[in-house]
């Protein structure tokens, strides 16, 4: 490997991007430690990364665009048996849906925040403030899952979303309403996401991930296979919602009760 300035520059960038293996990273870090000018260059790159992270995060797609795109891919037709009913009751169903949506929204606003959800948000905040968001730090689900399994009666869902842009950081155990609840920590750029799993006795959040805001944090909760899942982060709400969708899809493939892919 040549050590001229240009390839060194590429290596500094690769170190910043976490693209070097342990051996390569060690070598570059040693060079940085020995060379103040190099260290200064690396500090500037890290400063740039911070400025970019603050200003160019993923931007939520406009609602109109999202609706148009979703419409492009809507299911084609309902089965014929239902079609007649659908035509007959279309407007009634639409009205009911509207009413339900309105009511749902009303209920959400009117009810006091769920104590468990509140505790989960506080646990996430505590992890961020302490700088210790995980009890077991590992990007490998095959490390995190057994660690949790050794401390809890029920196996936790742990999914790998690294290729979706949400690498695993590790896991911890929170105490929610007096019970131990496994929490996974994922990362998105400079943001952490906590996903807490509540056991069988927990409340039913409904099958579709739903968004609420607590203390300024977007929170998405849903239920699957008798478990309640609550994700919280300081990400933009839309981004947290996509994370929840991805988590749910991946978890659906992992759970024993999941329908096998045809």
């Amino acid at each position: 490997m040549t050590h001229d300035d240009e390839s060194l520059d590429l290596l500094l960038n690769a170190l910043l991007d976490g693209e070097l293996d342990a051996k390569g990273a060690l070598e570059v870090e040693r060079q940085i430690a020995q060379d103040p000018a190099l260290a200064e260059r690396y500090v500037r790159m890290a400063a740039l990364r911070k400025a970019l992270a603050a200003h160019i995060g993923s931007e939520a797609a406009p609602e109109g665009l999202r609706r148009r795109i979703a419409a492009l891919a809507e299911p084609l037709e309902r089965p014929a048996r239902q079609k007649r009913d659908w035509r007959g009751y279309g407007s009634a169903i639409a009205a009911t849906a509207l009413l339900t949506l309105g009511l749902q929204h009303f209920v959400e606003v009117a009810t006091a925040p769920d104590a468990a959800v509140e505790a989960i948000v506080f646990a996430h905040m505590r992890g961020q403030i302490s700088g210790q968001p995980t009890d077991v730090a590992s990007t490998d689900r095959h490390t995190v899952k057994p660690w949790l399994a050794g401390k809890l009666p029920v196996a936790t869902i742990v999914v790998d979303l690294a290729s979706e842009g949400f690498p695993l950081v590790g896991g911890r155990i929170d105490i929610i309403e007096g019970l131990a609840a496994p929490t996974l920590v994922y990362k998105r750029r400079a943001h952490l996401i906590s996903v807490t799993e509540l056991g069988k006795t927990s409340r039913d959040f409904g099958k579709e991930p739903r968004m609420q805001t607590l203390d300024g944090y977007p929170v998405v909760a849903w239920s699957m296979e008798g478990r309640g899942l609550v994700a919280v982060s300081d990400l933009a709400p839309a981004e947290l919602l996509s994370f929840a969708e991805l988590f749910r899809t991946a978890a659906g493939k992992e759970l024993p009760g999941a329908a096998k892919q045809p």
Partner: protein
Amino acid sequence: MTNESGKEPGEAARRRFREEALPHLDDAYSLARWLAGNRTDAEDIVQDACLRALQASPERRVENPRAWLLTVVRNAAYNWFAKNRPAALVLAGGAEDVETRAGATAPSAPAPDAALIEAADRRAVNEAIEALPLPFKETLIMREANGLSYREISEATGVPIGTVMSRLARARAMLIEKLGASS
């Protein structure tokens, strides 16, 4: 690749799009917005990209749906450029040949100040990125806004990893120089 008008994507293609592409719409829109430089054109590009994605054969397993969708968006953006801003592509082609190594600051120039870089405001960051030549801009955005790995960027842009690395290094060097220079 053309859209065969009148050929409706089937149920399998639709379901796959809903499950694999739709969750990444924000990522797709962000990339398009940076490439196009404004929201209106970004919406056109994303819509075009999604139509293409829907036409893709549903039998093929995609290893990484997010990287795949971003690749489709990137290609749709280039098609859109070819139609609407051919000049942008002509300029992009010559970016790599620029001999002056941006960022290799001459000894006489003062070194950019890290604190200044970190404190750059949104407008300054936007302007600095907008000024990057297209190949550097797309590489930087895929890395910093979409969080793609070098390999994923290499596949999306169709250039070797070495080229991705040097584009990224040069994009950052240009930004450091711009944002770190006390104006």
